[in-house]
C-alpha cells in the first residue's frame, strides 16, 4: 500500500497546532474486517478537511473514532492533543458533531431540541434570543422555531443539527455527509455556513461523497478507499486540477495496486 501523497504547501493560514489529528489510526473489527488502515491526517483551526470516498471507505469509522464511539485497534485520534479513547469526555468537550441524517426528539420543538443539546454540550447560559439568532443564521424560518420536529423535512432537521453544533461553540466540528439529501439551495446555504464557521477559526472535518462541494469549500481534500487514505491535497495543490478525474484515477490506481499486491 502506497502512502498517500501529502503536501503542507498552501496551508500557510493554519495555526501550528492541529485540533484534529489521526495518527496511524487503524480499526479492525472482531470479524477481521479492516475498516481503517493506519490513517494519518491533521485538521488545523480555520481549516475545512474533506474526506472523500465511496461507501465503506472508512470515512464514518474515522469520525466514530474521533467521537470514541469505537476504540482504535492501534493508533490514536486526538482532539486538541487529547487522545479520544483515553480521555473521551475531555475530547468531546472540544467537539461538535452533525450526522448525515440529523434526528432529534420529534415531540420537542426546534427550540426545545437546541436547548437540550446545547445544555448537554455544556452551554447553559443561552437564552431564547441566542437560540433564535443561531437558528436564523442556519436558515430556519422563525415560524418553525416553536413547531415540533415531527413535521420537519430533512433539510430543516439538518439546519437544527448545525445550529446545535454552532451553539456548542466547540473548536472542532465533525460533519458526517452533511449535504446528503439536501436540495441544491440548502446545499449552497450550508457551504456558505461552513465557510463562515471556518472564518471563525473552527477546525472542520467533513466526510462526503460530494466532490463538487468538497472542492468548493475544502482547504484539504483526502480521498479514502477501503480504509486507506490514498490521496491528500491542499486547495492550492488542487488549483486547476479536475478533482473528479483525480478521484477516479486515485480510486482506480489504488485498486490496481491492491490487485497487484
Amino acid at each position, binding site marked *: 500500500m502506497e502512502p498517500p501523497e501529502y503536501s503542507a504547501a498552501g496551508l500557510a493560514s493554519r495555526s501550528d497546532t492541529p485540533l484534529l489529528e489521526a495518527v496511524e489510526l487503524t480499526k479492525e473489527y472482531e470479524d477481521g474486517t479492516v475498516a481503517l488502515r493506519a490513517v494519518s491526517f491533521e485538521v488545523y483551526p480555520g481549516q475545512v478537511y474533506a474526506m472523500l470516498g465511496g461507501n465503506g471507505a472508512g470515512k464514518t469509522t474515522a469520525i466514530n473514532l474521533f467521537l470514541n464511539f*469505537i476504540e482504535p485497534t492501534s493508533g490514536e485520534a486526538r482532539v486538541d492533543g487529547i487522545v479520544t479513547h483515553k480521555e*473521551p469526555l475531555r475530547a*468531546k468537550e472540544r467537539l461538535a458533531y452533525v450526522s448525515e441524517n440529523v*434526528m432529534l*426528539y*420529534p*415531540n*420537542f420543538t426546534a427550540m*426545545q431540541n437546541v436547548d437540550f443539546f446545547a445544555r448537554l*454540550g455544556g452551554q447553559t447560559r443561552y437564552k431564547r434570543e441566542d437560540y433564535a439568532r443561531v437558528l436564523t443564521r442556519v436558515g430556519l424560518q422563525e415560524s418553525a422555531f416553536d413547531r415540533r420536529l415531527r413535521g420537519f423535512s430533512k433539510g430543516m432537521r439538518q439546519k437544527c443539527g448545525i445550529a446545535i453544533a454552532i451553539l456548542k461553540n466547540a473548536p472542532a466540528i465533525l460533519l458526517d455527509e452533511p449535504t446528503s439529501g439536501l436540495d441544491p439551495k440548502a446545499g449552497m446555504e450550508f457551504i456558505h455556513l461552513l465557510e463562515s464557521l471556518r472564518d471563525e477559526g473552527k477546525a472542520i472535518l467533513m466526510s462526503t461523497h460530494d466532490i463538487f462541494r468538497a472542492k468548493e469549500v475544502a482547504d484539504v481534500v483526502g480521498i479514502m478507499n477501503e480504509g486507506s487514505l490514498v490521496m491528500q491535497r491542499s486547495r492550492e495543490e488542487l488549483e486547476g486540477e479536475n478533482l473528479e478525474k483525480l478521484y477516479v484515477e486515485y480510486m482506480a490506481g489504488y485498486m490496481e495496486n491492491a490487485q497487484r499486491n
Partner: protein
Amino acid sequence: MLRLIIDKELREIIGSTKFAVTFGVMSLLILLAFYVGARNYQISTQDYEAAVAENLKQMEGLTDWNRVDNRIFLKPEPLTALVSGISNDIGRTVEIQTQWEPRSEDSRFNEDPIYAVFRFIDLEFIFSIVLSLFAILFVYDAVNGEKERGTLRLAFANAVPRDKYILGKLIGSFVALAVPLLVPILIGCGLLPLLGVSMDSSSWIRLGIVIAAGLMYLGVFLTLSIFVSSMTERSSSSFLLLLVVWIFAVLIIPRTAVFVAGRAVDVPTVDAIDFQKSSYMSQLWDEDMKKMDEFRRSPAGQAEAQEDRRRRWRAYMSQLADERTEKIDAFAQRLNEDRRNRDLARQRVALGIARISPASVFTLAATDLAGTSLDLKNRFDVAARAYREAYTRFIVDKTGSSGAGWWMSGNNQDAEEINPYELPAFEYQAAPVSDYVTSALPDLAILMLFNFAFFAGAFLAFLRYDVR
C-alpha cells in the same frame, strides 16, 4: 447533567400522546377502584351490621341456650376496599356450635359469583397488571429506541457520562410515571372519608406503604425495561421480549407456582378430613350406644324414683356427649393440625416459586399490608376457634353442660327467655400495624432487590452499549 437528562426524559414522556392517553386511563381506573372499593366496603359493612343484628334477633324468644343458633361474622376492614386480596373468597360467616368445629362459609363471591369470574378492580390489580404494562409501554425503547432515532449518537457526541445518562433516564421515566399516578391516588384517598370509608391511623400507614410498594414495583418494571432495552439492538425485539417476561411474571409464574406446589406437597381435602372425622364419630357413637344400652339394661335402684332415673340418664347422656366431644375435638385437632402443617408447607413452596415473579411479590406485600393475605383466613379461623371455646364455656356456665346432647335430653319449655346480649361478643381484631409491616417486609426487600438487580444489569449493559 443528571438534572438535564431527567428533565428531558420527563418532558419527552409527558409531552407524548401516549402519556395523555395513559394518564387518562390510569386516573379513570384508579378513581373507579376507589369508588368501587368504597361501595363494596359500604355494602359489606351494611351486610355485616345487618347479619349481627339478625343473629341476635333470631335468638329472641328462645328459652334454652342449647337451642341457640349462634353465628359470628368477619367485620370488613377499610383497606379491603382498596386491596381486596382473598377477602371476597373466604367465608365471612361462621356458625358456632359447642359440638362442631367452626367452619367459615358464605363468601362474597358466593353471593355475587359474577365477581369471582371477573374480579373487582382494586389498587392491587391496577398496580400489578395495568401499571406494569404501562411501564413497559413507556420504557421498552428507552435506549435502543434512541439509537434507532439517532438521538443517542447525537447525545453521546457530547461529554455525557454514561452512568449519569442511564440514571437520568431511569429517574426521569420513574418520576414521569409515578407523579401522575400519585395524583389520582391522592384524590382517591381524599374521597375515601366522603365515600363512607373511615380509615384509622393504622389503615393510613398501611395504605401509604402499599402505595410505596406499588412505586417499587413500578421501579422493577422500569429498570427491567431499561435493562432489556440496553441489551437489544431493536426496539421491536425489546418490546416482544418484555411482553413475554410480563406474561410470565404476571400470568404464568403465579399459577404455575400453585400447580407445582400442589403436586409437590399432598394436602388432604377438607372432605377427606371430614370423612375421617365422621368415621371416628360413628365409631365413638357406636361405643356410646353400647354404653347407653348397658345403662338402660342396668336395673334401677329400688328406691330410685322414675324422675331420679331420668335425671341420672340425662346426666349420663350429657357426660357421654361431653366425652365424645372432647375425643372428637382432640381427633379433629390432630387432623386439622396435620392438614394445616401440610397446607403451610404447600403455601411455602407455592409462594417460594411465585416470588420469582415481581408481580407475585407485590401482590403478597400489598395483601399482607392490607390484611387480606392468606393470613386473613388463618386469623379468622383462629379467632373463630377461640370464640368457640369462650362460647362453650359460656354455654356450660349457663346450662351445666356443653349441650352436645341437648336434643336427647329434651327441652325446658317453661324456662325464662334467654338474653342474647349476654353472649360473649365476637369482634375480629385486626393485628397491630407492626405485624402487617413485619409480614410484608421480606417481600418489600425482594422488590428492592429486583430494582437493584435490574438497574445494575441496565447500568452494566449500557456501559458497553454501542451507541452508533
